[in-house]
Structure formats: C-alpha cells, structure tokens
C-alpha cells in the first residue's frame, strides 16, 4: 500500500491582518479616551432618567461629599487663573508663580481660601493624600467665600453653567446651604449630575 503522505503545513499564521486590526482599535481608544480626573473625594451619584448629557465646556462644578464637605472646580484652566487673580486681589493673598501653576492644574479643591497658599505649596502626592476640609461656607461677618467664588467665576466667564454633583447620601441641609449661596448670587438654574438609568415600568 502506498503511504498517504500528508503534506506538512506550516503552523505559523499570517499575523499582519490581526496586527492591523489591533492597532486600528488601539488608535480609536487612544483618541477617544478621556481620563477620569483625579477627584478630591469619592462621590457616588444618584441615578435618574434624565437624558441631557453634561455640557463639555464652561462648567462650574460643585461637589458635595456624603459628610457635607463642599468642593469646587472649574473645567477651564484660563478661567482658573483669572479666578485665582481675583481671589488674590480680594483676599489680599499673594501667590507665588509655583502656586499659581499648581492651581491651574487642580480639578477640584475644597479648602478655605485663606489656606489656599499652603495647600498649593504641597507637592502633588501629599496633596492627593491630604484630607481636604471642604470650602468654607460660613456666612458670618457678612461675607461668604462660596458666594465670592460663584461671583468671580461668573464674572470671568459669563457662559459658565453650574453643575452640582452630590452623593446619594448627602443630606439635604448641606445641599440647601449651597443652593442658598447660589440664589444669593442670583443663580436660580443649575444642573444636578446623575447617572443614566432607564425608567422602570
């Protein structure tokens, strides 16, 4: 009987096409990725059926942690710098160029404005580990730092929209204090940030 010869086939597969696909996808993901900014505090947002996506630019973001600490953030670095200048004039604090540069890069922060220089002086890792006490919302003495922040930011960028990101478990009294401050600055319209959920039938 003649031997049936099975021709030996090479086991190596042409990887070129697969490589192409992989890198195509990789490029897509690199371009679409927007990294989650480092957050001052972990906030678990409530879900709603609201469908309006959050605007990309011109946002003033207030975050309220479960224990009621208030944090502030602007999305635009140029407005941040202008705000710092205004704060420096109004509160008579001088910021060094290094502190200004550090402020420009901070997404959200929550310290008393008078304590900003020492907060900005920290190096980034120490700052991330630092337990921020939250903005000073105290209104005794007829001035409110939160109201000043709202006023100055809006004066520097009048297209700013206000977003409030509150944790599910944040009590209403903390939330109310912020709203009072906003309303004192004639802001009656703001956005609550929620995650998407479908309406249960």
């Amino acid at each position, binding site marked *: 009987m003649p031997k049936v010869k099975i021709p030996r086939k090479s086991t*190596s597969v*042409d*990887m*070129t*096409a*697969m*490589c192409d696909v*992989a*890198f195509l*996808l*990789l490029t897509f*993901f*690199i371009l*679409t*990725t*927007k*990294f*989650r900014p480092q957050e001052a505090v972990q906030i678990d*947002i*409530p*879900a*709603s*059926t*609201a*469908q*309006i*996506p*959050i*605007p990309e630019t011109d946002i003033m973001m207030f975050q*309220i942690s479960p224990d009621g600490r208030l944090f502030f953030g602007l999305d635009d670095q140029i407005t941040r710098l202008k705000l710092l200048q205004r704060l420096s004039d109004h509160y008579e604090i001088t910021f060094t160029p290094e502190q200004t540069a550090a402020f420009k890069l901070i997404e959200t922060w929550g310290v008393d404005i008078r304590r900003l220089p020492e907060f900005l002086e920290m190096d980034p890792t120490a700052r991330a580990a630092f337990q921020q006490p939250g903005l000073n919302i105290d209104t005794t003495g007829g001035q409110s730092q939160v109201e000043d922040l709202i006023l100055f930011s809006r004066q520097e960028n009048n297209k700013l929209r206000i*977003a409030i*990101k*509150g*944790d*599910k*478990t*944040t*009590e*209403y*009294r903390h*939330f*109310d204090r912020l*709203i009072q401050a906003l*309303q*004192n600055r*004639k802001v*009656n*319209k*703001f*956005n*609550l*940030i*929620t*995650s*998407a959920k479908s*309406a*249960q*039938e």
Partner: protein
Amino acid sequence: MAEMNTSDSGSHKKGSKKLRTKKMSTRVDLTAMVDLGFLLITFFMLATTMNKPKTMEVNKPAKEKEEVKEPPIKMSKTATLMLGARNKIYAYVSPDEIDATTELQLDSLDYSPTGLRKFIQRRQKEVQEQWGDKDQLFVMIKPLPSSNVKNIVDVLDEMTINDVKRYAILEPNDPIDSLVALQTRQSRK
C-alpha cells in the same frame, strides 16, 4: 502583506564570481506585536469612561427682595410631598380652607412605583376630575434637612416620568409642615 519581493537582479558586478547575498525572509513574526496591541487596547478600554453622566436641570423660583403678592393657588389643585429621613415621603393635600374641624390625611410613601408614583397618578386623576385638566396639578416638594440628594433626584425624576408640568422645590414653611415635622419627629430647619 508583510513580504516584499526581493528579486536580486543585476548583481553581477564582478564578472567571474557571482556575489550572492543570502536571501533572507522578510517575514516578521507579528505575534508579539499583536499581543502588545491587544494589551494596550484592553488598558484603554478599561480606562475610558464610556457612559457620560447626565444632568438634570433644576430651576428654583427667584428670591424676591420685596414680597410679591402672587395670586394664591387653590390648595385643592396641589399636592405636597415632604421628603423625610430614611427614604420616607409624607404626602398630603391641604384643603382650601382650614378650620378647627379640618382633618388632614397624611400618607407615608416610599420611592417605589407603588408608592410615590401611585400617589401622583391618583392626584392627577383627582385634579382631572375636579378641574378638567390634569396639568393643573401643582406639586410642592418640601425636602426636610434630613432627606438626601438621592431623594430629591428621585422625586424630580418622578415628576418627569408622570409628566407633571408644575412643581417647585420649596421650604417647609407652612403651618401644616411644622405639624407634620413634629409628628414625624424630624427637625424642620
């Protein structure tokens, strides 16, 4: 694709001896590169935030410096929801006129479809029967300090789901509110 034709033509420089360069395969093993590619894809896929958070617009009535006398709304068109601690809602409909004999029915609801949603739908029906238009219903949302943000979002959401046209977030200043707060042992301020 990754191969090229490497035909060596015209390599006769020195007539006598052919200088033949060794034919090397141009085929490169791409397995490692593919591995790397997929590794990076995995990383970016996990790092990216795909579903963006949504926003819910809230309009508060403007604070007026001087008291503007608004035409009082008929209480029988309203429903009041007081948001309390531990995910409870105290709902009542205050009568048009209050006197000593008035009895108020206070419902304690939760945020489930059978609680709050049913109450709103019932109220819409009642308003529909009484006034001929269910959009006349005015819902007053009065959060007590001990309620939380999720409660407010849920209530506002319920307004959208049930298509309530008129609602407002108010402070619990009404005498009835203080009574309710007292009864449920919750501070009003």
